[in-house]
């Protein structure tokens, strides 16, 4: 049961910065409205962060760009997106993506 020091640090730090926004409004701001600008801004955070994460996963490897011609991930992501769009299933999309990647690697991509 090994826990690396930096992973422990991240777990504690991430837990702290997560619990504060969860707790503070319920405890202190019972009757105060958040400013509209902040609400609108927060509404775009999920799309922005997921776009940033997905692009980093697809186009980078070890911080370096992957040559487009050798990028199997760009092909394997297509069935995952299709399954998510058609069926709204996260599990289904993951299985489709993993199966597509396994197939591409078996074919030598």
């Amino acid at each position, binding site marked *: 049961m090994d826990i690396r020091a930096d992973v422990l640090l991240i777990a504690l730090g991430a837990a702290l910065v997560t619990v504060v*926004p969860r707790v503070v409004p*319920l405890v202190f701001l019972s*009757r105060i409205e958040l400013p509209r600008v902040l609400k609108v801004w927060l509404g775009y955070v999920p799309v922005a962060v*997921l776009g940033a994460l997905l*692009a980093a996963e697809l186009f980078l490897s070890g911080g370096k760009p992957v040559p487009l011609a050798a990028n199997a991930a760009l092909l394997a992501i297509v069935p995952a997106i299709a399954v998510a769009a058609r069926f*709204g299933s*996260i599990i289904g999309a993951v299985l489709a993506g993993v*199966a597509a990647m396994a197939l591409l*690697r078996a074919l030598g991509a």
Partner: protein
Amino acid sequence: MTPLAAPAPAGFAAGARAGLPVVLGYLSIGFAAGVVQRASGLSLAEVMLMSLLLYAGSAQFVVASMLAAASPPLAVIATVFFVNLRHLLLSAALAPWFARVPAWKNALIGAQLTDETFVVALNGLQKGVQARPAWMAGLNLSAYAAWATANLAGALAGGLVGHTRALGFDFALPAMFAALLVLQFVAQANRWRALAVTLVASALSVAVAVMIPGNWNIIIATVAGATLGAALELWTSAPTSS
């Protein structure tokens, strides 16, 4: 709200029953999350540490992804902060219902707030369930237990498979991000703005990673993308809406 003649049951057991859809959802997504975290190099103990302390699906994927890219802890924590900042909204939306509840109980209720439990809680409250801490505890603890159990099962299964690249398991993480992004798109009122935000955040994420050392690309791209989206929305709707 009209006062109901016979108020819906609002005890711990009723809260746990209300949480059943969340439990079912978490059992499947949590299993996938466990597999994904193992595949990105976290040990079984580390997966459970994240599951029990952090207890936030998308943030756990972010941690897994950034750790695999050897990001510095401060960059990971800062990114998680922005990813989870949306809980401010959920917590603020629940606050008026629990205005008469003691602060320490509200703190416990808030500490386990998630997107899914929020939806179930608000739905129940709007349908006349009394805002009682015991009901929230039943909902929160059943969801928390399901998440931890599913993470554990997924981490165990992922450990059996190991790091076999040939099986494509390392691709579970990008596939999950893509699926979550698609679901976010479906929920957005204006798809064009969402598309603009996604494209700008994606391009910045890659460009910053290549040009600036230190793995700050996710956080810079997220803040820039959300600011663009908010600016577009406020700019186009400024004169009329309040």
